[in-house]
């Protein structure tokens, strides 16, 4: 499991300390702009909430910026920290590719399309939200969202191994 060899690098550290092991391509050829556009594309196309799948297919399969093992490790870390998986992954991957600038480019890219869309949605909703037609559609949308969240919860619950003690925490969290 240890990165053989890399642990034994002697004192003079590499010139780019921010390029951390785990990234397949340590090449500076990956430009900040490339990172931005890649995450922008993910941010613009990942409809339906499954951002992780879109991230994997882009970063691992298409661009080969990460190997699968690193992707899973970063994902596990994203999930155990506060913050959304998508933005945490953007930070971690961006940092590994090009340091702070890479992290900023990645998170801006992944957030921008959805943010612009929801900005426009807010404007439209303010003007047209009270129309009976819009209200009717939105009621349906909200009801479907409830089903979606419940399904997400159940799928998450299935994946985690449960002890009886865990259920106590579940209940306490709901009540709290």
């Amino acid at each position, binding site marked *: 499991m240890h990165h053989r060899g890399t642990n034994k690098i002697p004192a003079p550290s590499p010139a780019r300390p921010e390029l951390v092991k785990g990234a397949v391509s340590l090449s500076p050829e990956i430009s900040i702009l490339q990172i931005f556009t890649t995450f922008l594309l993910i941010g613009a196309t990942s409809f339906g909430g499954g951002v992780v799948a879109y991230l994997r297919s882009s970063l691992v399969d298409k661009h080969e910026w990460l190997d699968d093992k690193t992707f899973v490790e970063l994902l596990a870390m994203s999930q155990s920290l506060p*913050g959304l998986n998508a933005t945490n992954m953007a930070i971690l991957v961006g940092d590994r590719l090009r340091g702070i600038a890479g992290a900023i480019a990645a998170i801006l890219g992944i957030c921008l399309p959805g943010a612009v869309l929801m900005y426009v949605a807010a404007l439209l909703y303010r003007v047209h939200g009270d129309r009976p037609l819009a209200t009717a559609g939105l009621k349906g949308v909200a009801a479907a969202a409830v089903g979606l969240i419940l399904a997400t919860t159940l799928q998450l619950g299935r994946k985690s191994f449960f002890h009886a003690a865990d259920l106590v925490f579940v209940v306490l969290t709901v009540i709290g």
Partner: protein
Amino acid sequence: MKQIPALIRVFSYLSLLTVGGGMAAFPELKFLTVDVHRWLTFPQLIHLYGVGQMAPGPNMMMVVSIGQWVAGLPGAIVVLIAFFLPTALLTFIIGRLWTRLGKWRWRRSIQRGLAPVSIGLLLACCLTMAKGAVTGWVTAGIAVITFVILLRSRINPALLILGGAGVGLLVLRA
């Protein structure tokens, strides 16, 4: 404009509650934006949240809509930064520490401990949402059907939300 400091306070606090996903912060989001600050009504929040489920990218981009409502473009930008910067910084710092440790030893225990908490938070979110969104037989039906289809197939959830909109348009017109 007067609301900008309040927006920063509320959304940077909510940022740290997004443990195990953005939805974890929903009950507190509802409490602070609807009950405390009265920036929008509960049905409005639920509508925006539902629309947000159709948007691509990170979940919870609907916070931008709230910022827009409260203080226009500056509000939207402020909310975006307040909601994403705190956790982004935390992740950045821990990400760097982790690589130095080689393998993050707490990871497994944190994940084990967090799983039941995030499931609980999701259920709480679901309950909060349902109270506002499930108002009759039709909406209950939409919720249940969406739920069942999602468990039984790998259909894109955004399509189901769109379907919900369609059913709403056809049936729920007052």
